[in-house]
């Protein structure tokens, strides 16, 4: 295959408007909303080859390809999605969607509230993974997809995959849950709350209505992102990449950037806080915290998965301590106990939680093998 590493090329985001109110987990409704999405590949005549990509905390609908020839970076999962790539657009019709509450085009806290003509800000409801799944299902309806060949996601995206398989068992043939967890641990919630506190206590936050003050809680968001980044990398990986390297080669006995790791984190924090919405960050971390599908079944995950019909591939990474292999094994155990089809792979990687976005050979190989099998099933 000569096109193993080729790209989906130039892509354009699309937009879908919804005017039927969406009931939300918090009891309220979102009366009208828009969702932005991208698609790659062609939906086949049987409409059986659709794949949904669910994004993680800071992701979006721009999964693969570039918007124009000068684009420096392709979509966030361009390594995995494209012609000849593991999620092969020669076989699959791939959909990337920006979740509601996001800040990349779908209706979110920074969107204009039609009721006031002002950005929603603090008026935007806190959303859950279940809410996202319902909204994504409506988009699937709009695109003529009854049943996905696969729903795929890492981290918070993996939670959406798990929820999809539970909420719509007949609409998911294969569920690929990567570097995820059946619910967050206390430690994970703790990290999220420190991140939220950084934002909430920023004087520029203005109770979430910072837009009308023409400002944004950038310091808070920057800190939140820096903290997050530490938890996405492994100690070993960070050591390997940065060690104790000094930018100038010697101690400066001050508080400016000295160690390379400081420089890296500050750069990541600065960049992120300039482009991401603080309210979206709050909302995403809250959705993470709330996710717990076994909450409705007496904390019995096996029971929560009883009606699931999808085949599962669960993948974890050895050095991921934010969503550790143990958490993935909880999902696997529940699926085994519920007698579901499941395969589990624990990929050796130094990349920590971020490994799900990287290309460790075993990871790519397993994804390719699994999805090749899915693609073959379509032709029968």
């Amino acid at each position: 295959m000569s096109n193993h590493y080729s790209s989906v090329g130039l892509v354009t985001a699309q937009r879908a408007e919804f005017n039927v109110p969406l009931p939300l987990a918090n009891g309220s409704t979102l009366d009208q909303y828009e969702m932005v999405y991208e698609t790659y590949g062609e939906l086949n005549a049987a409409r059986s080859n659709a794949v949904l990509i669910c994004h993680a905390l800071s992701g979006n609908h721009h999964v693969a390809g570039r918007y124009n020839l000068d684009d420096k970076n392709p979509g966030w999962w361009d390594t995995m999605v494209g012609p000849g790539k593991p999620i092969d657009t020669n076989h699959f019709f791939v959909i990337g969607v920006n979740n509601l509450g996001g800040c990349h085009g779908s209706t979110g806290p920074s969107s204009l509230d039609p009721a006031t003509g002002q950005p929603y800000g603090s008026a935007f409801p806190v959303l859950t993974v279940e809410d996202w799944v319902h909204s994504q299902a409506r988009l699937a309806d709009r695109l003529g997809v009854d049943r996905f060949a696969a729903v795929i996601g890492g981290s918070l995206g993996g939670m959406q995959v798990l929820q999809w398989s539970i909420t719509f068992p007949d609409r998911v043939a294969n569920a690929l849950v990567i570097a995820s967890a059946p619910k967050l641990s206390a430690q994970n919630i703790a990290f999220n709350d420190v991140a939220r506190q950084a934002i909430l206590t920023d004087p520029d936050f203005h109770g979430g209505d910072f837009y009308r003050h023409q400002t944004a809680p950038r310091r808070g968001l920057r800190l939140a992102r820096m903290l997050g980044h530490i938890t996405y990398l492994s100690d070993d990986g960070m050591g390997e990449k940065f060690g104790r390297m000094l930018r100038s080669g010697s101690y400066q006995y001050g508080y400016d950037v000295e160690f390379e790791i400081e420089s890296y984190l500050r750069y990541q924090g600065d960049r992120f806080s300039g482009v991401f919405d603080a309210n979206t960050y709050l909302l995403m971390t809250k959705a993470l915290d709330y996710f717990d599908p076994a909450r409705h079944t007496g904390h019995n995950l096996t029971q929560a998965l009883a009606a699931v019909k999808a085949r599962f591939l669960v993948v974890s990474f050895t050095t991921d301590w934010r969503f550790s292999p143990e958490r993935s094994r909880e999902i696997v155990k529940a699926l085994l106990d519920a007698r579901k089809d499941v395969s589990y792979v624990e990929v050796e990687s130094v990349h920590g939680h971020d490994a799900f976005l990287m290309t460790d050979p075993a990871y790519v190989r397993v994804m390719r093998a699994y999805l090749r099998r899915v693609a073959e099933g379509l032709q029968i």
Partner: protein
Amino acid sequence: MNMRLPEQNLRPDLERVANWIAPASRVLDLGCGDGALLSYLRAEKQVEGYGVEIDIDGVASCIEHGVNVVQSDLESGLSGFESNSFDYVVLSLTLQSMRRIEFIVQEMLRVGRIGIVTFPNFGYWQNRWQILRGRMPVSETIPYEWYNTPNIHLCTLHDFDRFLTAHKMRTTAQMVLHQGRRVNVLPNLMGSLALVRFEFE
């Protein structure tokens, strides 16, 4: 691109193991390699099964063949599997290289009703003859030199039988093979590969 493993390629010991397994049962295959046994059982006997494999090549191959596989180290046990959740638990050509034999065999009969193991029979005459000549045996089923062998718990057909009795288990079927063929005469001497099916007493 043929994704189903051709059945004629099933290893001779696995073919015999497959014969011991009832149709439509649930099978856990420990150290399942490329998933050949499960792939065969699924196609021929409507068996529902899972493999356990540590090696990524085997895991990837299972996935490619649509065989459910859990990547895990058998030495750490089968804690991911519920008690009494399988009809059969198979451990083929792996026992001899494991550290905790008692532990894994007990785990097999915790999660399953019937255990099936296959292992190189140390009682095979060529092994005995080489020891008599003062050398560590190297034979078809034990193809390693003493210094590079992964095998740390070799035993004879009789040894395994006694092991089962000592642990309140019993043999319900046994067979020895040599070069893929069944051997009926003096099995512990003439068979290089042993197959044993067992249950609790």
